């Protein structure tokens, strides 16, 4: 978010806000019977992207000086709601009341001006600047003889830093900060800006338990002094501890506010999962449980996202990996694919020790990956369909042993796969950048059809593709499994795994939190197991 100083924000100066005001902010609005007065009232917020509803009339009421939980499954609309609140995107419908008057949040400056600050999962700082410079970024600064008087500013900021327990000197370089310190600097930044509401998006996702504990103590301190906190988290225990009230989003709707005795972990999970059972799918029983184990994973870990994980993946099996965003699923895939180094654990591929040094090594050994970020990691955009398909199996289309490509065979094989996958257009010389998302994904899958790996990992295989392409991709995955390929499917779409998989393991905070088989694989069971 841009923080450049703007004439439209007259109040953002530390020189104008005394330390006493910051340190001992009192709630100057009259408390009602439920605690503080209503600070933010969002009603009927609706937003759709390209015809797909991200929010359909979501509402949220937040009172001054309270910690308010916001929970919901992947895609429930939490992120969209926060972005609208921050002025990054504009809602299609709905209205906001802030501190008693109706507002329309036009841009991030406006949100800041109202007194909202946002602390995101990726805490962005300018690394080579000092902590103090980062805290003051974009704010008018006191000057002395024309130059910024950092000493005086430092003296003003010091009590705030002390209050949040920031244990690094203000002159330290921002790049040396740990995730916790980073977070504390962000809190300082919010306080200096006279924030009345701090929105925290998954604040503890990257932190170990003792650090998370410390952060929660600070949140309690903040709310005690009158700053409201919107606490967005998958960690329901933290929400339970910090918040007296929580709003649950489901499919873009707010399905209610839980508070007092009705607020419990069980009630939250129930609300997140919802009453609907989701679509019912024919349970897929794995035909041959005695088939050879293709990939054995034992105690595989990498701090902080993957705690020791163990499972067997059989030939011909489709194993789903469910869980929330940030649960460590893609990180697990990267370990298997040799893209990251593991901290501990062993792997076996068809009974032989498997220790990939790089993704090149993994491909050589017979592992394939359809990555999550199709454009950034899947395709070579300005090259042709044929080019992209053959990328992992170029040696197969040479006049071996002479390393020259058999141009006609190259084209014929690409055409064969393109026809099989119903890729449009059929002309395999077209650059893939001109294809739709679904067809690009089919090209990446086609690459592995040509390569024939022993184990194929698909990370979010149908994200952003249309319904027709999704069905075709599912059909292909099933066909590959029938032909003996061991398939690992990672998906955040709770309907995808029941539709596709013989078995599902659900990760929560980096560890396996549940395993589902056959008819037990349902949307609701996956979501319920996603919360540790």
């Amino acid at each position, binding site marked *: 978010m841009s923080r450049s100083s703007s004439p439209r924000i007259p109040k953002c100066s530390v020189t104008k806000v005394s330390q006493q005001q910051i340190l001992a902010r009192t709630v100057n609005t009259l408390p009602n019977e439920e605690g503080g007065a209503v600070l933010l009232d969002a009603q009927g917020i609706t937003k759709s992207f390209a015809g797909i509803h991200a929010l359909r009339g979501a509402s949220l009421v937040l009172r001054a000086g309270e910690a308010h939980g916001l929970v919901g499954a992947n895609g429930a609309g939490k992120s969209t709601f926060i972005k609208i609140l921050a002025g990054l995107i504009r809602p299609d419908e709905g209205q906001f009341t802030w501190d008693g008057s109706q507002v329309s949040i036009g841009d991030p400056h406006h949100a800041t001006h109202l007194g909202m600050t946002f602390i995101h999962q990726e805490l962005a700082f300018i690394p080579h600047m000092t902590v103090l410079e980062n805290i003051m970024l974009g704010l008018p600064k006191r000057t002395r003889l024309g130059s910024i008087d950092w000493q005086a500013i430092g003296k003003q900021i010091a009590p705030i830093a002390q209050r949040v327990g920031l244990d690094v000197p203000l002159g330290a370089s921002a790049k040396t900060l740990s995730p916790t310190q980073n977070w504390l600097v962000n809190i300082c930044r919010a306080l200096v800006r006279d924030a009345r509401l701090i929105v925290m998006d998954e604040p503890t996702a990257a932190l170990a338990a003792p650090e998370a504990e410390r952060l929660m103590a600070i949140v309690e301190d903040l709310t005690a002094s009158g700053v409201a906190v919107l606490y967005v988290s998958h960690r329901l225990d933290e929400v339970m501890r910090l918040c007296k009230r929580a709003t649950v989003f489901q499919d873009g709707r707010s399905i209610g506010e839980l508070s007092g005795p009705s607020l419990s972990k069980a009630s939250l999970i129930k609300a997140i999962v919802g009453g609907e059972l989701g679509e019912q799918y024919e349970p897929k029983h794995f035909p041959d449980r005695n088939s050879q184990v293709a990939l054995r994973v034992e105690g595989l870990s990498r701090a902080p996202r993957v705690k020791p994980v163990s499972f067997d993946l059989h030939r011909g099996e489709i194993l789903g990996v469910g869980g929330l965003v940030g649960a460590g699923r893609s990180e697990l895939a990267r370990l298997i694919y040799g893209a990251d180094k593991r901290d501990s654990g062993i792997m076996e591929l068809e009974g032989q020790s498997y220790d990939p040094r*790089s993704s090149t090594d993994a491909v050589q050994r017979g592992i394939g990956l359809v990555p999550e970020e199709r454009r950034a990691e*899947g395709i*070579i955009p*300005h*090259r042709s369909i044929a080019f992209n398909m053959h*990328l992992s199996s170029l040696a197969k289309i040479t006049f071996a042993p002479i*390393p*020259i*490509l058999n141009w006609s065979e190259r084209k014929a094989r690409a055409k064969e796969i393109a026809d099989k996958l119903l890729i449009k257009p059929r002309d395999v010389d077209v650059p893939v950048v001109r294809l739709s998302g679904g067809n690009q994904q089919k090209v990446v899958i086609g690459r592995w059809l040509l390569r024939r790996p022993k184990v194929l990992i698909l990370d979010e295989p149908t994200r952003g593709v249309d319904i027709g392409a999704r069905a075709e991709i599912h059909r292909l995955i099933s066909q590959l499994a029938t032909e003996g390929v061991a398939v690992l499917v990672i998906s955040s779409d709770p309907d995808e795994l029941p539709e596709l998989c013989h078995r599902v393991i659900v990760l929560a905070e980096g560890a396996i939190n549940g395993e589902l088989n056959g008819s037990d694989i349902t949307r609701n069971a996956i979501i319920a197991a996603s919360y540790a």
Partner: protein
Amino acid sequence: MGVGAKRNLSLFARYATLIGLALMVLTFSLLSPTAFPTVSNFVNVVNQASLVVIIAVGLTMTVMMGELDLSVGYVASLCGILVVGFMTTNGLPVWLAIPAVICIGAAIGFINGVLVAKLKINSVIATLGVGTMLTGLAFAYSAGAPLVSGVPPIFVDISLGRWIPGIPNNIVLMALLAGLLWFVVERTPFGQEVQAVGGNASAARLAGISVDKIKIIGFMLSGAGAAITGILLASRLGSGTPGAGDSYLLTAFAAVFLGSATLRDGEFHILGTVIGALIIAFGFNGLNIFGAPTFSQYLLQGAILIVAVGISSFSRLLAES
């Protein structure tokens, strides 16, 4: 601008450099009908361009992968001195001195490649540093003076002779080497991998391509191409002269970038590089015929480089918009 207009502009951009070449040849022919449009002058121009083409097609291998090799001019200079020195001072026969020096060029490329791919040093800095050190080595080896005495006539004949009547050998060598590299890039697994690394290195890595290895080999080819240019330059001059190849760096870059806007949308490719080098050679030839003063050649050289890079980025922008 509408989609159709954009596509038309993009199409026009692909042929703009070729149209420019045609217009230039036409203009020079009309202005100087006796000196410019003759077979012997055209052969002369292509002969002049041949050394640029050889160094530039090698350079294309690194630029295609998104890296820059700024050492090529210095590699050419050093290799020119070494090949003469090996024959005169060390008494090596021609048939041994030439491959030895090409191997040295490739070895320098290997060092560049390791610095860039393994040690993750920015390729501009790495190759500039290596290139500057090579200049030092060249001066140390030659004591700063050109090596002129005792150059075997057979070595000079490589550049000045004609294996095919009417066609200077450098043109033949240029055609062979450019053709070979074109084939490697377009028709071998290695060439496809080079293009993949240049197109999207992360995707290439996840597809199982050893990106580091491909980059190192690319730099080795660039070094070898520069070495061959250095050898042919020494053969043409009949001496090993410090700094003789330095100026090839900018000309080669201009050729590579002009070429990227030719026939494709800002993608580097071998055929484009060859055409780019020819455009530059015709331009300088025309200026020579009209007796343009020396200073204007430098102005033109700098302007061509800027215009070439500009056209290249512009045509990429057009393709992506």
